[in-house]
């Protein structure tokens, strides 16, 4: 009796969960469908489930001015800055975790607070700084911005992981004839691999989707795909929905694949490494 009821309640739970998931997925589904619709099918008053798919929209996106440069930049900026940021954050987290300099907690808080300030609040000062340095529109300037942007979060995640690695690992490496660098990179680093992956994924998503700083600080050769959303939005006086849909579909694919492959690390990232679960 009770077992039956338990089964029934569980069924209901699952149904509700599926429903919520589908509701959340609906806009994404709409966009993906729209990417393959003709303008007529898309703007028709009633929603058309059945239509003749077309690749015209995708073709139009691929032919858009500077699309290749933007896409390359999206990859280069995301991957480049995150790799650099993780290297720096890992070394910083190692120092904080192992040597515990006075004020560690305060410094950690300060670093994170950079990410707590809303973007518009720092946009103008940052633009002035970049102008003064002559970095606006430069590749390295943009890259360094994203490195800076990615360090705090990575540092927090990695510090959590490193605190969980016994000091005996370092000491064993040192006693076994290794140098400090050997201990850091060959012995301790492999122990926090899940943390490195979690930090990388999170920051890859952040940088991949970042628009406003890229738009203001970047130039012709350093802006990424989100920039096209802003500039390619209007076509002949009206919003070009099929273009937006096709571009979104293309742009959302890499993060979706990555998240699908590494989803177990997402929880780790969201909890700053305090919930490590099975990873």
């Amino acid at each position, binding site marked *: 009796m009770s077992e039956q009821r338990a089964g029934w309640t569980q069924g209901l739970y699952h149904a509700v969960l599926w429903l919520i998931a589908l509701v959340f997925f609906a806009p994404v589904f709409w966009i993906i469908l729209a990417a393959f619709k003709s303008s007529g099918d898309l703007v028709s008053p009633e929603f058309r489930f059945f239509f003749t798919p077309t690749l015209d929209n995708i073709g139009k996106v691929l032919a858009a001015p500077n699309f290749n440069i933007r896409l390359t930049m999206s990859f280069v900026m995301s991957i480049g800055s995150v790799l650099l940021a993780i290297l720096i954050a890992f070394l910083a987290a190692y120092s904080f975790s192992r040597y515990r300099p006075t004020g560690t907690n305060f410094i950690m808080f300060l670093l994170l607070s950079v990410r707590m300030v809303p973007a518009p609040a720092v946009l103008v000062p940052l633009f002035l700084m970049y102008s003064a340095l002559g970095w606006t529109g430069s590749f390295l300037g943009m890259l360094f911005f994203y490195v800076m942007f990615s360090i705090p979060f990575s540092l927090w995640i990695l510090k959590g992981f490193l605190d969980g690695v*016994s000091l*005996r*690992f370092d*000491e*064993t490496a*040192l*006693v*076994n*004839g*290794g*140098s400090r660098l*050997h201990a850091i990179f060959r*012995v301790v680093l*492999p*122990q926090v*691999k899940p943390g490195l992956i979690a930090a990388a994924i999170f920051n890859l998503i952040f940088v991949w989707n970042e628009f406003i700083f890229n738009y203001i600080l970047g130039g012709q050769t350093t802006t990424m795909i989100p920039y096209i959303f802003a500039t390619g939005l209007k076509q002949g006086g009206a919003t070009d929905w099929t273009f937006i849909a096709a571009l979104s579909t293309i742009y959302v694919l890499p993060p979706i694949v990555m998240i699908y492959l590494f989803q177990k690390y997402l929880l780790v990232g969201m909890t700053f490494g305090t919930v490590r679960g099975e990873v």
Partner: protein
Amino acid sequence: MADIRVERLRKVFGPVVALDDVDFSFPDSSVTCLLGPSGCGKTTLMRIIAGLEVATAGEVFFGERNVTGLPPRKREIGMVFQYPVVYKGINVRENIELPLKSEKLSAAERRRRVDEVIEVLGLAAAADKDVGRLDNGTRQKVAVAREVARQPRIILFDEPITNVDATAKLQLKRAFKELTRRLSQTIVYVTHDQTEAMTLADQIALMRDGRIVQCDAPRTLYSRPADRFGGWFLGNPGMAFFDAELHGNGTFLTLVSALVPAPLAVDGPQLAPGRVTLGIRPEQVLVSTDRVPGAVPARLSRKSVQIGGQWLLSLTVPGLDERAFKAKVGPEQGARLPESGEVFVALPPASITLFGPEGDRLPASFPAASAVAAD
């Protein structure tokens, strides 16, 4: 030569003196256990030997070589910690092989060494498993194997079997015994577990409050503790202590205590009349229901059976302070004794140890011992 010598070694953590001018030598090719209660400085001493901790003052020598200023990696030592350090994501064999890779060894030689330690430590079944799937005991074996495979001249063990469960503990202890029998390295083994020390050590260095108070073979340390601390710390339970007095003049002394029916003649170079402490191991106290020669009446208040079938007795002796002391008797005799009531206790003179007012052992012999027994 790879004996370890420390000279006037001192280590201070803020107001705490962890090592108090320690002078000591760990003999070459033997197992020395550093034994002592928590916080006595044994781990600090070991960490300074390893170079992981810098001494406040004093020097460390390996043979003739002064290593005081050397970083750990240049000391050519191996070390195993309480926490089993194994490298995740690679299997047991690779874990053992990892440090060998940075040494100038041929692949064949590496393989030979790895196979050898795997065999000695009984790791064959686990050799190709990922370390993530191993229990703590096996992980610790892997950590030990990794150090042994490097063949350093000195291996330091810092409470390596404290963190594993009881069965694994026994197994590890056996593996260590076998291992140390086959190795010719100088081994320092830190523990607070006396059974471990008794099983594994060639000699035990007993530590207390940042000093090494005694270093002897396990049996000697047990039967001839240098001071009251050694008597109390070793044994389970430790020595029982009683107040006693030495009477007489310079040439002829007798021991007077409520525990001996008649004054006992005693002989010893440093003895003088006055108060002393009489110590005896619980298992050496003779307890019976009959009045044997040399026995005094006592009250048995409780008895309980111990591991190995021995009985632990709580006794009080009239005329002595009312504090109960412990005695241990064999299974049959323990079963014969009443649950509580009047019994007789006798201290065989040969088992009595005398301590001076400072707590140090007074060399003493009881020439009339045989006479008492024959009485």
